[in-house]
């Protein structure tokens, strides 16, 4: 009986995003981000937002992504308000409410910034919700990255979800004991502040323990069997080269735009 390898394929249905390797997904996120920085046309930005949103909606939408998006929407609303009122280049009034004028330039600037934030959130959300830690680790190891480096990278990437998981546990315990009802945003924020330092210490403690057990479990052993990728990916090398090339071109173009201002 096959009890281990390819277990995920057997229990879950394959989706289109399972054919895209993790590095391509990350490069795609970087490419979309650079596109949004290079082309400032608002319609183009809106198109990119829609494209990245479609990517997210056509994949697996996790509650963590929804939470991140809702938090960003709150930030975006604040940004639009502040820039609309106080942006340094504000000239043309858009509308006035009770003698407070809201300007067009600040509003458009805030919209561009918001679009970039949304593109980054949607693209990274697509990566996070369609790959697992083990898939990323196995893939990176299979393309030649040293396992120690893979583990270090994964630990850094997942330290925030680990903090979030610990926080949920503490808050759940608090609610169960009736300490903090956490119904409103203020109550939620207030409940986080006193547990912030113990939370970070606990997470670091867990990370130290994990690194100890990994050494005990021989993860840096020279005889380690190279991991095989979880799925069969489509045209990995081509997509890596293509996306890397266009991303480098976009970075170069952005740098040229900045430098040419001073020339």
């Amino acid at each position: 009986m096959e009890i281990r390898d390819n277990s995920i394929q057997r229990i879950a249905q394959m989706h289109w995003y399972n054919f895209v390797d993790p590095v391509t997904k990350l490069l795609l996120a970087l490419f979309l981000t650079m596109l949004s920085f290079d082309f400032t046309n608002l319609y183009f930005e809106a198109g990119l937002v829609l494209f990245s949103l479609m990517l997210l909606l056509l994949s697996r939408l996790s509650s963590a992504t929804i939470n991140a998006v809702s938090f960003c929407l709150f930030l975006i609303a604040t940004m639009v308000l502040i820039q609309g009122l106080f942006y340094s280049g504000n000239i043309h009034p858009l509308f006035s409410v009770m003698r407070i004028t809201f300007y067009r330039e600040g509003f458009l600037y805030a919209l561009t910034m918001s679009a970039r934030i949304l593109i980054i959130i949607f693209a990274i959300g697509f990566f996070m919700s369609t790959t697992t830690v083990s898939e990323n680790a196995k893939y990176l190891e299979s393309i030649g990255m040293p396992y120690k480096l893979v583990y270090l990278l994964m630990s850094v990437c997942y330290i925030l979800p680990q903090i979030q998981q610990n926080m949920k546990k503490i808050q759940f315990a608090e609610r169960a004991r009736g300490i903090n009802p956490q119904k409103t945003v203020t109550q939620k924020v207030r409940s986080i502040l006193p547990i912030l330092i113990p939370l970070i210490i606990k997470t670091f403690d867990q990370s130290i323990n994990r690194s100890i057990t990994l050494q005990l479990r021989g993860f840096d052993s020279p005889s380690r069997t190279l991991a095989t990728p979880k799925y069969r990916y489509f045209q990995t090398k081509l997509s890596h080269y293509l996306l890397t090339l266009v991303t480098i071109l976009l970075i170069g173009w952005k740098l040229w735009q900045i430098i040419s201002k001073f020339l």
Partner: protein
Amino acid sequence: MANNQQISINDLSFTYRHDSKTVLHDISVSAPLNSIIGIIGNHNAGKTTLCRLLAGIIPNMMSGQLSGDIHIGNLSPTHDWSALNRQTGFVLQDPASQLSGLADTVADEIAFDLLNHGVAEAEIQRRVADVAAQLQLTAQLQQSPNSLSGGQLQRLAIATAIVTEPTLLILDNPTSEMDPQGRRAFFEWLRRIKNTTILLVSNEIDDLCEIADRLWLLADGELVSQGTPLEVINQLKSEWQIGTPKIYQLAKLMDWSLGADLFPVNINQLRGCLHDRDSN
């Protein structure tokens, strides 16, 4: 020179770095290999630190002021850590920290150690299935480790430690989150293990007295008593604040002595004691 059939600890003292308090003071003790050694003691007695020293976590991964030496057979955790580590299975107090965090399924998590040791895939499949059956995790093999209960997580942590077939097994409070049935099954399973030296920190004094060949009792970092469970339990002092097994309490209450003012601490001793009384 070290006896290669013994665990021997000589004048062992340890203080953690950035800490003024000495956690272990002048511990000297020995026990034969392939026996089950129960380590008992109250809070902050130094049980976990002793386990870390025996596994070589101290001084190889955690530092501090260390004096004295430890020999496990002909290996020392200080000098031959790599060789010793290949033969050691360690279960942490917190089972969640034991997991690699890189496995999607319980089966992959158990296989992690074997992959690290370069074991062939067919052998990995066999050992994972075998260990899962031993620890009643077969039904959970395809589940995510994050979906397991506390007791199942502890069993998974034990599975990851024993899958490499270690000759030294160090278990730091491995039943703290298990239900009574799971705990009973664990101690039954432990009793069946052969050719392995087991060092077990546990507060389950009844179960320890049933399976342990020797007990080491720590109090405030000192080894205050050691010997067979019968010897240690019958010499307990109140200031050590160690609970006694129910069988011992009952025997003492009923004055069912084994002679020489010793009271039974496990079921076999109690049976023997009652049998002797009936014959007389």
